[in-house]
């Protein structure tokens, strides 16, 4: 298999006011690669992945997604966002729309898919995350785990080439975490390119090709799961691992 470069971040810096949130971040993600990002709270994990679909703007360096450099050109940003799906910690489903309408919204309005076709595809993805029986309910009528799976289906419906997950299980009750992780494992096995911010180390071991440890806006360690857990180099990584394992 030839490797195809999906995401490239070169010397990326970002500040919030005086706060240096991303400090010289370099990252390459190949097609079908699964990256797990972990690190202490406030280390810039969310900011990093939000720069990839430009929910945040970086101030220095370059970010290239599928060959397109992220600039202020709104056309290319919207196109890239169509290729990059995102799943949030708080689900962020649209409460005024049914699950089905949530899932078909972007295909219909961004991809211009005919409605009937969009519904067919939506039902297919809802079935894949096992909530096709909830299609006509509103988000408030679903459990947290079901909502998060709906959010994943909503992102998948755009047939993205890259999926970003920002702590997708952190807001869930323990008994619902597994149902969401199972969906993500299935997605990974299907060959999706994924960047996942999570503290679920079991998931990281099972799925990740590379685990990245961030601290104070820097990528401190980037290793395969084996190396990451058994031979961490940096003291900060060791300390972090001792806390969460």
């Amino acid at each position, binding site marked *: 298999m030839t490797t195809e470069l999906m995401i490239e971040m070169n010397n990326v810096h970002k500040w919030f006011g005086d706060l240096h949130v991303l400090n010289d971040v370099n990252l390459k993600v190949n097609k079908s690669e699964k990256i797990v990002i972990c690190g202490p709270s406030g280390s810039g994990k969310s900011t990093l992945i939000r720069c990839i679909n430009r929910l945040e703007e970086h101030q220095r360096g370059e970010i290239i997604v599928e060959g397109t450099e992220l600039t202020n050109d709104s056309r290319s940003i*919207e196109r890239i966002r169509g290729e990059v799906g995102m799943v*949030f910690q708080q689900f962020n489903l*649209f*409460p*005024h729309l049914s699950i089905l309408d949530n899932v078909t919204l972007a295909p219909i309005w961004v991809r211009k898919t005919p409605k009937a076709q969009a519904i067919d595809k939506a039902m297919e993805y809802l079935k894949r995350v096992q909530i096709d029986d909830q299609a006509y309910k509103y988000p408030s009528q679903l459990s947290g785990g079901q909502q998060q799976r709906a959010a994943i289906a909503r992102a998948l419906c755009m047939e993205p080439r890259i999926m970003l997950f920002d702590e997708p299980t952190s807001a869930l009750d323990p008994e619902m975490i597994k149902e969401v992780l199972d969906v993500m494992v299935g997605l990974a096995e299907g060959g999706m390119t994924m960047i996942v911010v999570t503290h679920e180390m079991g998931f990281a071991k099972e799925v990740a090709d590379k685990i990245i440890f961030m601290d104070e806006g820097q990528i401190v360690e980037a290793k395969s799961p084996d190396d990451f857990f058994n031979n961490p180099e940096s003291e900060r990584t060791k300390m972090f691992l001792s806390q969460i394992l």
Partner: protein
Amino acid sequence: MNTEIKDSIEVTKPPIASIGIIGWLRKNLFSSWSNTILTLLGIYILYSIIPSFISWAFIDASFVGSTKQECSKEGACWIFIKENLKLIFYGLYPSEELWRINSMYFVLLVCGIYILIPNLKYKGWVGSFLLILFPILSVVMFSGGFGLETVETRLWGGLFLTLVIAGVGIVLSLPIGVMLALGRRSKLPVVSLLSTIFIEIWRGVPLITVLFMASNMFPLFMPEGVNFDKLIRALIGVMFFSAAYLAEVVRGGLQAMPKGQYEAAQAMGLSYWRMMALVILPQSLKMVIPAIIGSFIAIFKDTTLVLVIGLFDFLGIIQFVGTNPDWLGFSHEGYVFAAVIFWIFCFGMSRYSQNLEKKLDTGR
């Protein structure tokens, strides 16, 4: 164990005195000595007002006849309203052209009822017809052209004029208000500044001043010979005035939206306008329905101020016919009638707002 619990639940019913009418009375009207006194006082006041009002308005009132002389001295003279009904409802609009107004009322009524009946198809089409074609059709029907005789706006009056002003004010001010609210929150400094200035200027001026300016000062600024219809000037004034208020109401709704909704919409590649139209506005407008309808009710009642620039709206014309020598001394009946009609419209809007809220409630 389980059955025991179940039994005990079935047995305990609330004591009679805490439910039903007696319970309600006790809890709400006679819960303490001071409340009992207030209740009795309230009953006494109602007792002394209501019966005398009822005998004035109905029992002693005169309904049949056509002149002042046929009215009894003690009761209300509803003949006054009856005889002047055409003026009160249509102003000086020519009698032979009234069908034009009435047929538009009829169309409005039919469409309105159609939209209010639940579960009918094509509501979107009927709604768009009402919002787009109906106003255009109304302009032609009311003022003339296309073979219809021209009726100058100075002849428009009464409830008809009130509905025209309130209708235009309501229908046009909402979209303008939404645009102003979006403008004020815009990231582009110029847009935001201009919107803010516009909103604050209109909100800082009483409507009566706006109307005076529209009527008296506006022509001074226009090049000679250019002249707008007075009604149109008043309409523009009312429209921007209420748009400025609505803008702030809508902005409140926009601010209450969680950031995650914007982010989710952006992350799926929706453009700014699609995000607003499909995700943000439906939710934030829903949140502020009560305040929006409140503004509409306020506009409806504020239309009475157009009297100061010489337009005879519903209330204005009632006052005007009260000064007719044939009907001197019946202003009470006129005001009561005006109050009842205003109340019916405003209460209708208020009820509609509640229904809409219930219907659109999908939880958070």
